[in-house]
């Protein structure tokens, strides 16, 4: 089995919605510690890929393996437990919860559901709670959120909400992080800052990261490798430079120029 050595190995993934083929024969291999971007125009099926990988959607056919384990049919919770965390394109924070609590939720699966511990306020419970708070603070600090930890998530500006979402995903202690358009709606400074943070996470924790992103500046500068999806199909793969210069990609992005294509490139 070839997928043995890879962190994530996706084989011929297909997703149909009724008659529409949203993703067809998508394949991907990720090695430990890679930082890969998944790009493509609107409606290309990028988010669908993420939804499949995180268990939110069930694939029509094809399989994917995580650390050689077939996780194709896992629920989102199970997927999270094996070590895949994700963020959402249209931020899905727990709006009424504080930033800190948002991050703390991520620890739930690792730390006890111990109901009796909770009620009797045992030492173990207090310790766990303290530990959770501790770690949550660390992640908040990592994402520059220390000032905001007690704010309800809904009161935060867009950029901060994105960072909370990333902090929350990191708090599940994942091996693979799926970021769905992390820079959407951010202004250039915020984007630049985000870029630095992602680099930092990647470097510091040897995290494997897969990013879907529209902001090409970010993707081109950040990723080691890119995949381009168009109409559900893999259009191209390669280094940022290769992608930037691929005429197919340019066509997919900017449309098919009938005359004067050189004016653009």
């Amino acid at each position, binding site marked *: 089995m070839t997928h043995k050595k890879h962190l994530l190995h996706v084989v011929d993934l297909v997703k149909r919605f009724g008659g529409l083929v949203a993703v067809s024969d998508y394949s991907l291999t990720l090695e430990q510690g890679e930082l890969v971007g998944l790009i493509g125009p609107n409606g290309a099926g990028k988010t669908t890929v993420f939804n499949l990988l995180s268990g939110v959607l069930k694939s029509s056919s094809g399989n994917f393996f995580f650390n050689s384990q077939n996780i194709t049919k896992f629920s989102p919770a199970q997927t999270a437990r094996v070590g895949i965390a994700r963020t959402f394109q249209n931020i899905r924070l727990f709006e009424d919860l504080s930033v800190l609590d948002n991050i703390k939720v991520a620890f739930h699966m690792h730390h006890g559901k111990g109901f009796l511990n909770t009620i009797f306020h045992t030492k173990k419970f207090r310790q766990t709670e303290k530990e959770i708070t501790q770690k949550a603070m660390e992640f908040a600090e990592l994402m520059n959120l220390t000032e905001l930890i007690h704010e309800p998530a809904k009161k935060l500006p867009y950029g901060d909400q994105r960072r909370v979402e990333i902090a929350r995903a990191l708090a599940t202690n994942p091996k693979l992080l799926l970021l769905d358009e992390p820079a959407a709606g951010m202004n250039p400074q915020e984007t630049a800052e985000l870029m630095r943070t992602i680099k930092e996470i990647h470097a510091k924790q040897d995290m494997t990261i897969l990013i879907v992103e*529209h902001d090409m*500046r970010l993707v081109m500068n950040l990723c080691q490798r890119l995949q381009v999806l168009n109409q559900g199909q893999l259009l191209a793969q390669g280094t940022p430079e290769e992608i930037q210069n691929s005429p197919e990609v340019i066509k997919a*992005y*900017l449309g098919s120029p009938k005359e004067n294509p050189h004016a653009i*490139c």
Partner: protein
Amino acid sequence: MLSVENIDVYRGRTHVLRQVDIHVKHGEIIALIGANGAGKTTTLRTISGLLHPAKGKILYAAGKGKRQIEISSLPPEQIVSTGVSHCPEGRGVFSQLSVKENLLVGAYLRKDNKIEQDIQSIYEMFPILEERSTQAAGNLSGGEQMMLALGRSLMSRPKLLILDEPSLGLAPLVIETIFNKLKKINTEGVTILIVEQNAVMALELSHRAYVLETGRVTLFGRSADLTLNPEVQKAYLGGE
């Protein structure tokens, strides 16, 4: 015809548009281009009254020499009645209504007796719609749905047609058909404001264009000039 003057728009607490200023003259095709999340759709929704600007105003005149009215605080149904027709992102056909009913909804505010005639002319423009006139719109393919959405928008006999990503998820051949029709519609006197991801096609179609980036207009000018502008490519493909 349409002046969007320095509008600021919030969605919830998020400041989506900052000081957006767009002017559309009679008979023009204006393209609004930019990356995802730049605020293109928000701009359109604000113009057609689904959202209201926190600051700034939107002025509109139905025809040359007609009085300009402020539409920024009107509800969408009144804005439609002044001759603005908005074809929403994702086409938004009523999937449980038949093709013909969708067209009739497009003519909802009209009280004249030429509606049937207009439906015929839409059928002439897109013959496939006539074939499927009694089918539920939800069963149409993506391209057919787009044709239907466009036809539906024309049913109100608009002076200003607003299109949000008409090419989204469509095959190139269909896109070309649609864009050709748009050109023709424009020559018949309908002003068009189009948001498009497919920048090259949009720039090719339009007379002038605005580039939006994170809620701001960063570039605007004649489309032919913008096509040559390296900034445009950068806005899409990044790079330094």
